């Protein structure tokens, strides 16, 4: 996100601003339903709410996606795939966590297979309360994320780079092996 093609004409700081302004308008979302909150994604994705109005479209490959939606609870087996998908995504990338479960475990607070706080393993830019959140709340979260990106506040991906060792240490407490 830092390569400035025209360093002499536009200063670096201004260039970043332009980049952020443009990237908030075309957030592509990875098509990965990790939990039950994905049930409210069809109304958001299709004709009833139609998130394409905001430039958000579902994308099948992680390489071309900017937005990872963690829809609900995260089982340990899924967490490994989420981390893999997250690491395959290109910077800048953003994470939205849906519902109660990624915040503090939700109704599965005593389950042996559900992680309790998502931000211990990957950085999260936005949380939505609800079980499950209404489509309106999801749309508002998208709008708020776009605003945050414009203001340069949504920088979870920078945090992940900076504290990579800590994130990886936490992840490896859950996984027994990483390379299979």
């Amino acid at each position, binding site marked *: 996100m830092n390569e400035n093609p025209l360093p002499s004409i536009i200063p670096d700081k201004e260039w970043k601003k332009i980049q952020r302004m443009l990237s908030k308008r075309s957030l592509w979302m990875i098509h990965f339903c990790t939990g039950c909150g994905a049930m409210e994604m069809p109304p958001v994705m299709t*004709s*009833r*709410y*139609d998130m394409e*109005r905001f430039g958000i479209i579902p994308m099948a490959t992680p390489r071309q996606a900017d937005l990872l939606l963690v829809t609900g609870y995260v089982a340990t087996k899924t967490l490994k795939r989420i981390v893999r998908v997250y690491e395959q995504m290109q910077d800048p990338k953003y994470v939205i966590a849906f519902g*109660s479960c990624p*915040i*503090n*475990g*939700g*109704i599965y*607070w*005593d389950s042996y297979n559900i992680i309790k*706080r998502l*931000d211990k393993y990957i950085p*999260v*830019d*936005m*949380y*939505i*309360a*609800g*079980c499950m*959140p*209404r*489509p*309106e*709340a999801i*749309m*508002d*979260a998208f*709008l*708020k994320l776009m605003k*945050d990106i414009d203001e340069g*506040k*949504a920088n979870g991906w920078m945090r992940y780079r900076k504290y990579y060792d800590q994130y990886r240490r936490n992840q490896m407490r859950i996984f027994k092996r990483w390379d299979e």
Partner: protein
Amino acid sequence: MGVMKPFKALRHLTKHPHTIKYPYQKHTDIEGLELPTERYRGFHSNNLETCIGCQMCSKVCPANAITYVKIENSGKKGLKWRPVIDYGRCCYCGFCTDICPTKSLILTPRYEHISENIDEFKFIPTYQIREKKDKAIHMDEVLFKPEDYVPPKPKEEKS
């Protein structure tokens, strides 16, 4: 004719759009009633005056979401514990409001709380949540400082 079939789709252009243009338009049902209705299970609201601090709501909660804080100047005698609800646990089932003996704890049709900060999802529900008609909850209306607590004015009775 198979050739003409695609052009038949043109008549859909004149139809009323199905999409809710969300930030500008409200969600309505088939008869035009605005949703959510009063029955919707959104965030809690607790009238701290009538709450007696019996702690029944935490015993019936399937998600173990309810803890308590002590309120010193609650303005009356009796139990001083008031529920704190962790929205990182709550599943909005409404069992706590069903069992509440004084019906001070209720669920409101307000449903929206979006934040970047994970610590903002645990708070004391107050009666202000009930009063406002907005769909979103803001931290300034739920942040509760016991020393600033002012009991609500009693409603005027119809004579």
